């Protein structure tokens, strides 16, 4: 099966992408997985400056899911370019950067810096992190905000621009359309669901930030629905994610409408997941006689066929 995926002028060798914030800066996993075998890796969210993030505890497990409020701890764009990109290039990784900002100017500036770096192939705009007060989700929860960030970044780079949408909205398809109209080359969805766990013995939230973002298998059926809705609404490629744990799950997103898939939480549970996913998708292609994985995208059959 031809596994290649096209996002604008960019071609990925396969549809498996490590999700932002779930794969460190990539270098952490170089011992465990051959980075060059992944379709791409998405960096942890990058601001202009370094950030320390929230205090621990930063995660708590929930039924079939986990809440996180890391608070976008990170080394900032410049150190990422200087300290991480050389190794990522040496390892043959295909790098998408996850760009954060508290203002549109910051998104633009970080994107411009990163776009000029060899080895970086696309820009994912994180307008959907539920865990920080300033920036991010305030853009992602408004149609105009989404449009403005995307079109501002669109102007300063020729790399594919991929806004990452939040699921915490009434009508995600309208956000997909807004992104497409603003010139996005693709969209990523979903980021995490805003959620909360309270320790009843102390009555305190279980994570220091109070609320956090829910990821993992728990959210998968909602994410699949959203990918399906966006597939009806826009023509640009979709990078689908939310609770993918095996090849079956990945194929479910692709059939729902995703051109490629990202894996986050499942990589924590099984860092050796990548070759298993690839094998599972190949095996499915063989069993069902599918020539190209792209032939599967958005091919949900009607229930009663």
């Amino acid at each position, binding site marked *: 099966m031809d596994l290649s995926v096209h996002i604008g002028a960019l071609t990925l060798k396969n549809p498996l992408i490590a999700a932002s*914030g*779930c*794969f*460190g800066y990539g270098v*952490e*996993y170089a*011992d*465990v997985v051959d980075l060059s075998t992944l379709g791409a890796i998405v960096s*942890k969210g990058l601001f202009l400056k370094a950030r*320390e*993030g929230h*205090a*621990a*505890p*930063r*995660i*708590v*497990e929930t*039924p*079939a*899911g*986990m809440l*996180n409020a*890391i608070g976008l*701890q990170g080394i900032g764009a410049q150190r990422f370019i200087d300290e991480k990109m050389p190794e990522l290039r040496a390892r043959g990784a295909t790098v998408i950067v996850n760009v954060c900002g508290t203002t549109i100017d910051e998104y633009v500036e970080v994107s411009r810096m990163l776009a000029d770096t060899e080895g970086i192939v696309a820009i994912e705009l994180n307008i959907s992190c539920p865990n920080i007060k300033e920036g991010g989700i305030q853009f992602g929860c408004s149609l105009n905000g989404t449009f403005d960030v995307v079109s501002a970044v669109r102007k300063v780079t020729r790399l594919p621009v991929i806004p990452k949408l939040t699921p915490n909205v009434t009508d995600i398809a309208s956000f997909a359309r807004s992104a497409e109209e603003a010139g996005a080359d693709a969209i990523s969805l979903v980021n995490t669901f805003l959620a909360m766990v309270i320790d009843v013995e102390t009555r305190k939230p279980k994570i220091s930030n109070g609320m956090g973002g829910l990821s*993992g*298998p*728990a959210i998968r059926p909602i994410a699949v629905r959203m990918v399906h809705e966006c597939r009806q609404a826009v023509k640009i490629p979709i990078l689908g994610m939310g609770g993918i*744990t095996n090849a079956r799950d990945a194929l479910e997103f692709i059939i729902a409408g995703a051109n490629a898939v990202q894996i986050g*939480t499942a*990589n*924590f*549970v*099984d*860092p*050796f997941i990548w070759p298993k996913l690839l094998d599972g998708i190949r095996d499915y292609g063989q069993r069902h006689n599918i020539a190209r994985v792209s032939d599967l995208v958005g091919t949900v059959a009607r229930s009663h066929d």
Partner: protein
Amino acid sequence: MPIDIAARVLANRPLSSDYNVLALAAPAIAAIATPGQFVMVKANAGADPLLRRPFSIFEILRDARGDVTGITILSKRIGVSTSLIYDAREGQRIDCLGPLGRPFTIVEPPTHACMVAGGVGLAPFATLAQALRARRVTSTLFYGARSAAELFYLDFFRDLGVELLLTTEDGSLGERGRIVAPLDRRLAGMPASTGVMIYACGPEGMMAATAKTAMKYGRPCEVSVERVMGCGLGGCYSCVVPMRGADGVVHNVRSCIAGPVLPGDQIQWD
């Protein structure tokens, strides 16, 4: 490079109504593990519970020929996964990823080693005591628990020639009270010319007290910290410990890859 093994349970030995020692057939992990390292374990199929759990490598198992066959973990039942581990049955498979993390620094004679363990914090010291013994380093285990019934493996350490100093909260064995008191006395009594290395693992408060006691006497101290860990590989940034860096500024450091063994004096205890 860590290895992931669907390890067969070789034996499950309950030590009390909460503690058990689980033996896992994981020779490839056992072969390369060093004292202070840990494994990430998943004792169930399916997504509830979802994440693996970190456990110190307690013992390295060997067969009659002396070849490594696996590891054990010493587990204290506090929630869902430790309950599954307590109830695990021989023959069952448990996913075991490791060895992970930065191990203890093993000193050389004539430095004396003080191991300070609180409760299940005993776990990393069995292999450390063996490694120290192999280097002929003399050592003392300061070991505190709630009661005599929760002080385990004393003969194991005695047989290695480790001096034992025990405390219990209820006074049922050893000195009544917390373990830092005898440590403090011991350090107070040691001439500055005698080299000492302090290793600590246990509840947060005990480790903070140990680190501060070590600093008081100007002694080096390595603590094995315990944070909620999502991945154990540096991927999630869940396990951070605030540490004063070389720049004098406090940074959040991932304890799964920079640790779990960290220099006690650089941690920002609160």
